[in-house]
């Protein structure tokens, strides 16, 4: 039994999402797709955790122009000094978007937002009408071109009826548009969203309908719970797996990283 990592239930939902995202990044790096375009918050934490846990490690690219950053502590902003000081190269912002993202040199990008719809389109612009919003959000930032050009996109978001909606109030970045064929019609060169990691489980686009479908639930989460936390008529994959709980080793590494 010594090769079986001890399992603990003593973890937060943030830790659960971060660990599951990090595992996926580890698998991508092992498959020869290591280059991540990282934002701040949970994606940055997940990517940095994966860098500590896996070999080969993900390569971190930040939109501030840092390529191959190896921060020893978690950055608060995408331009923290640590990211530049530990990078293999630092380039200008026009260059990072044109030569690196647009040119197809990013394997996986991260997105999040206030709303996500069943075709994985994301809203980070406004709640309500654009001209008279009830809530003005920060805006699209790097998201439209990450969604368009990254080889694949990972979304990390808490699942709730308010956030997981039938249709976004505004489309800041494109997942699968209004369904099959839209990405090709728009001429988008990247692969689009492949994984949505939530506090309840993991959704993936259905290969035929492109609709986000629940493929895994976290331990202790019921189908009813997931349905109740989704604003569209949630479908489940033929076989729904249960994610492996975060191990003590994963949690230790994550907490050390966050305390640094």
């Amino acid at each position: 039994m010594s090769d079986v990592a001890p399992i603990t239930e003593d973890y937060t939902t943030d830790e659960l999402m971060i660990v599951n995202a990090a595992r996926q990044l580890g698998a991508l790096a092992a498959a020869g797709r290591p280059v991540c375009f990282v934002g701040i918050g949970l994606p940055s934490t997940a990517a940095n955790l994966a860098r500590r846990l896996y070999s080969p490690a993900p390569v971190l690219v930040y939109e501030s122009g840092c390529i191959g950053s190896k921060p020893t502590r978690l950055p608060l902003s995408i331009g923290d000094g640590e990211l530049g000081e530990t990078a293999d190269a630092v380039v200008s912002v026009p260059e990072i978007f044109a030569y690196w993202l647009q040119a197809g040199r990013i394997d996986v990008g991260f997105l999040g937002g206030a709303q996500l719809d069943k075709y994985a389109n994301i809203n980070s612009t406004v709640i309500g009408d654009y001209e008279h919003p009830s809530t003005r959000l920060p805006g699209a930032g790097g998201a439209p071109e990450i969604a368009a050009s990254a080889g694949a996109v990972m979304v990390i978001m808490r699942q709730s009826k308010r956030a997981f909606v039938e249709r976004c109030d505004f489309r800041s970045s494109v997942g699968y548009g209004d369904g099959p064929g839209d990405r090709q019609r728009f001429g988008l060169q990247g692969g689009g969203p492949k994984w949505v990691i939530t506090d309840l489980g993991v959704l993936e686009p259905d290969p035929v309908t492109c609709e986000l479908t629940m493929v895994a639930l976290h331990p202790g989460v019921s189908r009813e719970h997931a349905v109740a936390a989704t604003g569209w008529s949630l479908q489940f994959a033929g076989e729904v797996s249960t994610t492996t709980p975060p191990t003590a080793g994963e949690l230790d590494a994550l907490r050390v990283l966050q305390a640094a």
Partner: protein
Amino acid sequence: MSRISSLHDAVAELVVDGDTVALEGFTHLIPHAAGHEIIRQGRRDLHLVRMTPDMVYDQLIGAGCATKLTFSWGGNPGVGSLQRFRDAVENQWPHPLEIEEHSHAGMATRYAAGAANLPFGILRGYVGTGLPEHTSTITQIECPFTGESLTAVPALRPDVSIVHAQRADREGNVQMWGLTGVQKEAVLAAKRSIVTVEEIVDHLEPVPYSVVLPWWVVTAVCEVPNGAHPSFAMGYSVRDNAFYKAWDAVSKDRESFTAWIEQHVLGTTTYEEFRRSAGVEVPASV
């Protein structure tokens, strides 16, 4: 052409009511002190441009300096919303703010086109999003060589661009390093420019990844130590994360914001005085 001047005199002469003004800086080297000087001198009706309007633009907007904002992401990184920006868009306070909204890639392309003296730039972007429907400065064009459909965005040509750099020499050559964002393009795209620097030195020593703006493309250089605080200047200071976090409470309501601006910005004459007034220390680089 670049001349050494005080920040007060540079803003008095080069930033005019109604101008299109870009204060650039991508987390690093944000010209906060220059933003304060614009507020102190009471500039009005500005069209502010910036990829990532943050606390500085929140202050300019809340203080009533701006009537238009062209941008791609307006927030307090790692903290949350810009309260004054939101109040202007949602409730028209202190007055309506017209917005022209782009993506980062689009804004970077627009600055690069301006720097290259081209009328527009092209990118693969925006397609399928809601932005082209609301932003008239996004359109599709056909590649004359391949027939491929691409997105065109017009060049940005600010009346004045303002950036912060680590240092300049006595001729007015400017040197910046670390994350240099879109600052080179912003300065080259503008009709006039102001660069605040940590220090003015006799000779600029080479530094890895440094960007040098020669004296003949910069209008005015102003020595303003810590002028990027609470942003940072690599080699001189580190980011004052506590200040960014504290901004949320200061900017939360109109009264506390206005009192803060009146006491610490309008009630002082320099950034050094502002910092003493607000009781802020600049975290030094280790």
